[in-house]
């Protein structure tokens, strides 16, 4: 079960809405019980027996939260925090990183001793593990830091940990936020319902029409790994992947937020037109906001943040970005991706203080904004190249070509090696750039659309759905963030 399966829209979501808002109206406990049961059903259908891991994480963090709150003894409080952190990090370590560590160890062994040491376990990555472990860890950390109280009932907490719209790929919701959402009986209203539908339809169209179509181009170029010296191909493939990852992930978030609206829960925004960012710092304020704020609050600041001197700040920033990169997946390209983002943030932080840069951007007005946008997006897309390509045999020549090192431009070669459907994809990419630009300038169009007249709304949403049906590629591509 996921958000591109028709069963979700035909059976699952209508049933949840009917049961929660219709039948159990105003009965908070019953509503939460239904939500929890349906969330477990959703997770079971998405990831099978891995639901046990979710139940372990939920039970341990619930107990740890209660124990930390109940005790005034510092050592006891710390012990229970450790229990929570070790449990969650162990789940991540075993199911997400163990094979990566074994393979890295084997590579090192092969180099020094000439023999492989251990077999990889081949464990399947449980869906959403990176999201729900981070979510429940932040809960116990906040209780330990006395920033919040534990939930009053296990039902409420279990609902927070397993709420189906955001369970698989976020947004990572803070416990306090969710508590406020469910403290009263869940209810919705016609405007909110329509907003929810708008977000869902917008998300479906964005995923199926844009993300999946441009993905075919990016995959064809990076998987085939041919003609990597052609700048046109590398730039185009990188642009396609940048569009894909944003449309894919933000579509998931839109559908998650929209689905939550239908059952009367508001989830936080996760994106604010990231490709309108004019600095690396600005980018991280707009991209995967729930993760970047999580990393800031639970990693960057505890590691020293920016108030303990330059060296400490550099260390905290680099560690945060490296771990943030590794959070995405057990692969060295994600580590490199985090490293480059860390370097960009540091260079930007110190670079903007230099007299020349201050003078240039002070004096250049709009041109300066344009220049900073171009530079920022050049590096953002450069990092997407690193993010996308795991195979170093493809990554290194692609990186060289991207920055113009020994690359060439051959339009005919480019056309020859693009997939069969070309011009539709060009148009979709152009439409995306245009709409993203407008959205960055004027603000999101989803709320605007949700407030339009019934006929306009119906015409726009009906057209989007129809285009999603007809312009989707033959095979739907899994959400990228399912892998994380």
């Amino acid at each position, binding site marked *: 079960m996921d958000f591109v399966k028709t069963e979700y829209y035909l059976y699952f979501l209508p049933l949840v809405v009917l049961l929660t808002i219709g039948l159990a109206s105003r009965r908070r406990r019953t509503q939460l019980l239904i939500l929890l049961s349906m969330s477990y059903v959703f997770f079971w259908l998405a990831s099978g027996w891995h639901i046990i891991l979710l139940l372990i994480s939920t039970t341990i963090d619930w107990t740890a939260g209660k124990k930390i709150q109940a005790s005034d003894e510092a050592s006891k409080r710390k012990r229970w925090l450790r229990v929570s952190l070790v449990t969650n990090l162990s789940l991540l370590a075993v199911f997400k990183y163990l094979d990566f560590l074994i393979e890295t160890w084997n590579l090192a062994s092969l180099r020094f001793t000439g023999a492989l040491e251990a077999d990889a376990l081949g464990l399947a990555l449980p869906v959403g593990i990176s999201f729900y472990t981070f979510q429940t860890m932040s809960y116990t950390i906040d209780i330990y830091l006395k920033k919040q109280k534990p939930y009053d009932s296990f039902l409420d907490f279990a609902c927070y940990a397993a709420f189906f719209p955001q369970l698989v790929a976020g947004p990572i919701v803070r416990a306090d936020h969710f508590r406020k959402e469910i403290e009263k009986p869940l209810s919705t209203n016609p*405007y909110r319902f329509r907003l929810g539908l708008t977000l869902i339809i917008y998300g479906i169209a964005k995923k199926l029409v844009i993300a999946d179509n441009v993905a075919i181009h990016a995959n064809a170029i990076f998987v085939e790994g041919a003609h990597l010296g052609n700048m046109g191909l590398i730039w185009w493939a990188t642009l396609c992947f940048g569009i894909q990852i944003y449309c894919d992930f933000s579509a998931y978030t839109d559908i998650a937020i929209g689905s939550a609206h239908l059952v009367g829960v508001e989830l936080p925004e996760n994106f604010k037109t990231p490709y309108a960012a004019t600095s690396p710092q600005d980018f991280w304020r707009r991209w995967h906001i729930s993760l970047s704020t999580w990393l800031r609050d639970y990693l960057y600041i505890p590691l020293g943040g920016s108030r303990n001197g330059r060296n400490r700040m550099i260390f905290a920033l680099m560690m945060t970005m490296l771990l943030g990169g590794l959070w995405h997946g057990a692969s060295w390209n994600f580590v490199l991706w985090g490293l480059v983002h860390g370097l960009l943030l540091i260079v930007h932080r110190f670079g903007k203080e230099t007299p020349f840069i201050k003078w240039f951007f002070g004096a250049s007005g709009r041109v300066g904004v344009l220049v900073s946008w171009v530079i920022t997006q050049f590096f953002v897309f450069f990092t997407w190249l690193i993010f996308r390509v795991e195979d170093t045999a493809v990554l290194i020549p692609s990186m060289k070509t991207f920055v113009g090192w020994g690359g060439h431009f051959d339009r005919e070669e480019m*056309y020859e090696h693009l997939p*069969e459907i070309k*011009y539709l994809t060009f148009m979709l990419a152009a439409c995306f750039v245009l709409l993203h630009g407008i959205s960055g300038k004027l603000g999101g169009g989803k709320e605007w659309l949700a*407030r339009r007249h*019934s006929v306009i709304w119906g015409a726009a949403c009906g*057209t989007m*759905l*129809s285009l999603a049906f007809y312009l989707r590629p033959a095979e739907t591509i899994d959400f990228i963030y399912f892998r994380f």
Partner: protein
Amino acid sequence: MPQPPDSNTSLASLMASIGALFVTYLVCSSLIVPDLVNKSLVEGNSLSSGRYGITFPAIESIGELESDAIVTIGSSILQYATDGACISEKLTTENTRVYNLAISGANPYTEMVQIPALTEMKPRMVLLDLGPNSLWNFYESESLDDYIEFRFTVLSITAELHAEGEWSDLLRERDRTYIANSVHERMQLTSSYSQTTFDELFLKHFHDVLDIPYYHRGMPEIGSDAWLSYLETPNFMPPKFETWNESEVDNWFQENMTNKAKMGAYNPNSNGTLNHQALNFMIRTLTEADIEVVLVAPPHHPQVYDYLQPGQIDGHNATLEFFEQTYGVQSLNWYWETWEPGMFRDRNHLGDVGREYYCERMAVELNHLLEG
């Protein structure tokens, strides 16, 4: 959740919104986009040849004309043999035109789908391709399955087909998925060409801006004069054997014909194949509707016969005899006639000279049949 000040959505307007959504979705998905796809299949470049999409629009166009129609259906052998305009001009019966709807790759199994529409259109006569190449037994072949999927899908998109009645009973289980029985199934099949359609539309409109060469491969606009003329006389393949010298042609036969002679096209069955069942359905349905059926078997290049064993083509003779006796249909079996090598474009297709000769022969036969 705070609501924006102008968000005075009521339950009634929510219901109206959802209603508008469904109406728009249905209009776009079952009318506007399918129409675009349909047009692109026939008039655009979505298919390698728009001819694969013309069958039903052509039957509809011919049915709307006041003249009597003689319709040719079958494989490329008849497609490249029949110059409908040439034959029509030689007919002594007034107000009768010959149309050529035969198409490359066609076999009785795929072409039976059009019979209900053809029966409803009620042409004066149907010239049905029945050479030895139509009587092979079905075999496991990916390319054959691909062709059947392609042909059925295109036919399903361009017309409302309902897999009812005898022809649908003949369908192989796997082929049923390519016949749309509902609006939703038709939308599903249409979606297999919608991406290509939009891609083609963008190329057509922006090739100047993008500085990309664009060659229009589509058919004339449906309903136009050029369209009606095309339905009589399609575009024919450029000359091939005609440009080779005698030894080049001899070499070609020596290199290729031994293998080809072992294939199904030269080893017709007498009965029992899906193609026989499809032919039986086609001939019976047409004759029951009082539409005259003529079975046509043009000859192949004279060198072909050097590679055939005695009795190899007997299944063809038996099949023709069966249909003649069962349904009283006429047959024009020219398969065993030896036509000049210069009349052929290749092994089994007529060239310009052969087409001219075929036109004369066919006109004589048709005049005889029409007057009789």
